[in-house]
């Protein structure tokens, strides 16, 4: 996903010379190398200065440019939080803040490098839009949206590298602010966002093999949330599973429950999120997910829908 983001951004930059990139000590030799070589004046590495990264991007946006800032999610979302709030959201500037390796992808680097609550925190900021594409293809669409939108700031939450392409045969295209059905059924709906779509697809495959009619939905736009379609989804399926690699506090699961209450949904609703706990374990990404109850097998057994 990271590499596809960089590739798509490069393509957008070829068409629009207002696109500039500000990074904080990351990736000049990696996926963004092509951008840096082709557009050296439009690429700034501010070093380990995340507050400066956001402030400088704000200043460039005030001059009519379209900055993308880029670093590991925890350092783009938390370290410069007040700059996101004041410089970008309060002034409503079209800056894309890329949070790379979000969730608990950096599993062996410890809690300092985990972004478990980024959506909850940033959702609370007025004017902030939040996108979390589920595969490289959706990341490309999301990047193109960010490069051309004029609404205001966007937090683009992406994975790292190696995520499979899942949306090649999606029923619907990416549309900002809309739920995206990758598969559509009538019995069970699995809704998720971001890089755990592969896990969600395995859950969908399981129930499909059992003869269930299964929907699989990418909620790539976490803010503004497509509340109308969420309500429709909750009414039109008998059972709904929400999966997220995000804290149980303030993420998609919590918002889905609130919408279900408001729209008086009668479906059976099961949610799977990260616990509201810091992670002090070290292992693979999958190891850490499992420790917080996230795996296809744990969701299948935990939801109780196989009986």
């Amino acid at each position, binding site marked *: 996903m990271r590499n596809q983001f960089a590739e798509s951004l490069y393509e957008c930059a070829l068409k629009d010379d207002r696109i500039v990139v500000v990074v904080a000590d990351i990736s000049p030799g990696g996926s963004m190398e092509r951008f840096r070589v082709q557009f050296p*004046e439009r690429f700034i590495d501010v070093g380990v200065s995340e*507050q*400066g990264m956001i*402030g*400088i991007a704000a*200043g460039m946006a*005030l*001059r009519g440019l379209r900055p993308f800032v880029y670093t590991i999610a925890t350092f783009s979302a938390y370290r410069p939080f007040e700059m996101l709030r004041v410089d970008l959201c309060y*002034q409503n500037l079209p800056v894309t803040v890329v949070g790379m390796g979000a969730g608990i992808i950096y599993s062996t680097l410890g809690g300092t490098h985990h972004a478990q609550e980024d959506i909850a925190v940033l959702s609370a900021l007025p004017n902030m839009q939040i996108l979390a594409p589920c595969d490289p293809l959706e990341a490309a669409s999301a990047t193109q949206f960010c490069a051309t939108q004029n609404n205001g700031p966007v937090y683009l939450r992406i994975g790292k590298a190696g995520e499979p392409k899942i949306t090649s045969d999606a029923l619907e295209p990416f549309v900002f602010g809309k739920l995206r059905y990758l598969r559509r059924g009538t019995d069970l709906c699995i809704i998720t966002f971001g890089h755990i779509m592969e896990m969600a697809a395995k859950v969908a495959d399981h129930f499909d093999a059992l003869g269930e009619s299964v929907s699989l939905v990418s909620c790539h736009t976490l803010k503004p949330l497509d509340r109308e379609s969420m309500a429709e989804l909750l009414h039109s399926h008998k059972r709904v599973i929400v999966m997220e690699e995000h804290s149980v506090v303030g993420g998609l699961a919590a918002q889905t429950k609130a919408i279900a209450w408001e729209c008086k949904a009668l479906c059976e609703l099961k949610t799977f999120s990260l616990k509201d706990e810091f992670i002090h374990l070290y292992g693979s990404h999958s190891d850490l997910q499992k420790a917080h109850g996230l795996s296809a097998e744990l969701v299948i057994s935990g939801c109780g829908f196989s009986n």
Partner: protein
Amino acid sequence: MEMVEAIYFSLMRRSADGTSPDTFIMSKGHGCMTQYLALEELGILPSATLERYCKIDGVLGAHPDFGNPGIEASTGSLGHGMAMAVGMAYADKIRNQDRSIYVVLSDGEFQEGSTWEALMIAGNLKVPRLVGFLDLNDRQSFVQTSVANPNFYPVLEKIQAFGWQAIEVDGHNSVQILEAVRSHDHKRPLLVVCKTVKGKGVSFMENVPIWHYRSPDPDEYQRACLELESQ
């Protein structure tokens, strides 16, 4: 006041319709009342707008809001203005824009790490049209800056070490301020370190901490005006 006056009335170029290619940012947002007065004098902010200052039917508050006439960045939380100014200056540099950026900062906000990040980056980027003004009045909310942070001094050498041209002047002397800006080599950013006295010219306000917060009552206002008019 003298810094703001020099910037608005001597440094910023202005065309007949009142617009300017140059930018002013009041990074020490709590100083925006001086900015409002300058904008009123220039006909950019209507007087009626100032009369509704901090009122429910007005648009001007105690910190400047981007979008109001003449306000080019929202500030108020300290340590934000310099980075935004650097971003503007760099955007102008890579797009060959003939624009200067003037930014006024307090010595209080030089204790913010974000200010030093921006200073360092500005020096690295060698933005040639960025001019900062440091209001070095040795006063912040509660204590003297030299007491709270004695290692902030000496200032000039630190700024120069970050790749800036830096000049110290009497911040109440408009001639010195303008001479400093005119000596800018335009190979790097310039910081004019302006030594000032907080509440200058009003005997009962000078360096008295409470005047960071309070507004004068009608009697105090009259006494302050009399003192200033007699100078």
